[in-house]
């Protein structure tokens, strides 16, 4: 506690202008930056998988399984930063017991459960069930046990059951698209519905969150696909990679347009809050917004992929460029979340001053913990890829 006070006294000495005395502490820190980031990666990865299955973009087939497993690994972790940021984590079950119907946050538990249990797990299960049955006969040890249990005792391998799996899987995917939109549009609504905060309170927030989620998820799957291919020492399917990049390009344009529209709207309307937001963007958020989010996260990736749409250099150059573009986009979207969550708390609701955000390295809300939450899903993904490698699948949907 003494350390916390010390931290606050330091922030107090850095206050610029006037802020309400209770606003010196930033109540939402790195963990809440991670929360929309990770949920966004889930929604984005899932939508990429759906592009292949529902919208029938066959070039994306090599990434279908990876995209689904990526979404699942990140979804497992999505709630952990949230719970760890609570002051009373042991009371978190209350959000399921007595969800407040008027709260934008209360429904998250249910949206999350729906998405995890009904959409992702079921879709993956339908996709893999036949393989589980087959693999359970050929493997040994832990894997054999896992495959046996996970089939839920349904061991049919005939064509009819495979067809049924396919149909049900398709149905779930169709259901999954609005669910993914719901999941992340909803996360945007948590911020967009706070009328007390002019930086958050915009009707575009859910839409912006949705498209930035798609951007980040697609970039993540693109990078993971390349890494997995390199690790497996197989040739990367260039048509697939080019197609992902093309979709990344389109959706990034939409995302950038929406975000620009939001800012232009603020600039032109120049409401009461505009004076302070102007100072915020030019000052405290200068690096994270103008450079990290807009320049590195948006303009450079757009220019590179845009250029490739007109002129295609050699495969090698494209591969390396895609890899770095993917990383840049992932960093850019991370800072987009940062700018929303942290940026929205840096200025006072009195619209007359600023506090500062001094993140710490250690502790439940520090940078180290953030690294853990970002690496953990990758470890889960590695495990899942070992347990149920999509490239070893026998069955495959149409």
């Amino acid at each position, binding site marked *: 506690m003494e350390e916390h006070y010390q931290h606050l006294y330091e922030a107090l000495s850095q206050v610029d202008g006037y802020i309400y005395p209770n606003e010196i502490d930033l109540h939402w820190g790195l963990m809440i930056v991670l929360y929309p980031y990770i949920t966004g990666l889930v929604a984005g990865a899932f939508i990429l998988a759906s592009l292949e299955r529902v919208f029938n973009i066959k070039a994306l087939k090599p990434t279908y399984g990876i995209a689904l497993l990526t979404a699942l690994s990140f979804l497992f972790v999505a709630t952990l930063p949230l719970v760890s940021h609570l002051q009373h984590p042991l009371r978190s079950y209350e959000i399921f017991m007595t969800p407040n*119907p008027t709260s934008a946050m209360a429904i998250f538990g249910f949206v999350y459960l729906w998405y995890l249990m009904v959409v992702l797990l079921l879709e993956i299960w339908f996709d893999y069930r036949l393989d589980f049955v087959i693999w359970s006969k050929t493997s040994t040890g832990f894997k054999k046990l896992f495959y046996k249990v996970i089939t839920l005792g349904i061991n049919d391998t005939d064509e009819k059951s495979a067809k049924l799996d396919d149909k049900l899987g398709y149905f779930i995917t169709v259901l999954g698209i609005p669910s993914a939109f719901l999941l992340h549009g909803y996360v945007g609504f948590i911020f967009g519905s706070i009328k007390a905060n002019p930086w958050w309170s915009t009707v575009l927030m859910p839409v912006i969150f949705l498209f930035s989620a798609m951007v980040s998820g697609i970039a993540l799957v693109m990078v993971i696909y390349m890494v997995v291919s390199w690790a497996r020492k197989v040739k990367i399917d260039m048509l697939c990679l080019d197609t992902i990049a093309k979709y990344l390009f389109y959706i990034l344009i939409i995302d950038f347009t929406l975000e620009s529209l939001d800012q232009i709207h603020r600039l032109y309307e120049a409401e009461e809050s505009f004076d302070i937001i102007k100072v915020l963007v030019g000052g405290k958020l200068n690096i994270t917004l103008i450079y990290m989010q807009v320049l590195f996260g948006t303009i450079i990736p757009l220019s590179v992929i845009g250029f490739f749409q007109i002129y295609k250099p050699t495969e090698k150059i494209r591969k390396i460029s895609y890899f770095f573009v993917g990383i840049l986009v992932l960093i850019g979207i991370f800072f987009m979340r940062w700018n929303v969550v942290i940026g929205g708390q840096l200025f006072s609701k009195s619209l007359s001053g600023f506090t500062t955000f001094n993140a710490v390295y250690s502790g439940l809300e520090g940078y180290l913990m953030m690294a853990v939450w970002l690496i953990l899903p990758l470890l889960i993904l590695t495990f899942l890829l070992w347990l149920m490698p999509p490239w070893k699948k026998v069955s495959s949907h149409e």
Partner: protein
Amino acid sequence: MGTERIVNKRRKFFQTSAALLGGTLLYSIIKPFEAIAQTEEEPTIDDKNLPLWGMGVDIESCIGCGKCAEACKIENKVPEEPFYFRTWVEQYTVKNDGEVKIESPNGGIGGLKQSVPDEDIFKSFMVPKLCNHCTKAPCVQACPVGATFISPDGVVLVDETYCIGCSYCIQACPYGARFMNPVTKVADKCTFCYHRITKGLEPACVEVCPTNARVFGDLRDKKGDLVKFLQDNPTQVLKPHLNTHSRVFYNGLSSEVK
């Protein structure tokens, strides 16, 4: 013939299951919006025999001595550190060049001191702040578990044993009236000294105010001090554009006040 029957059966099954799942999904989509629709209505408090607490603040009387902020901390065991306030006093100084300087060092405890040289001052005044006990409280709307609520007598309270400490209510409050209590680790805020007013006492801040700048009372008591204060003075609430319908009314509220 046989296959056709199976196909028909299956089609029927798909239709039913699609309808079922679609219904569930639709419900989960509509659910958050249903909540929005609900907030359009004012929360109804049925029992007209109960008081409806409110406060009047007279900016023209406040001298910025900070006694209220100090008393509040003592009465409600709020940590002494200058980051936690259930009530505080701000001093607004409008300079001759139009610049507005707002100050509230340590919430005004120990008395506000003028920091702008006399010759630069156009006008100056003090504004006590506290929870506005909104009728349409954004914090109550936002709380995910129902750990903060409007009591039947119109006071916004926190359930200390139930709050999960997510800080969403703090983000939702337009007035900066909430904070995370470092000791109890739950959201904390002005309760109008609920433990006092239910015993017939006045809130601590009202009790200690030397100039009677705060008038506490029952909005339903037509002969009470608060109703008289509202009748005699042109009053305004803070941030009226946010439509929170707050129950703390200010007399002499200048447009500089944020």
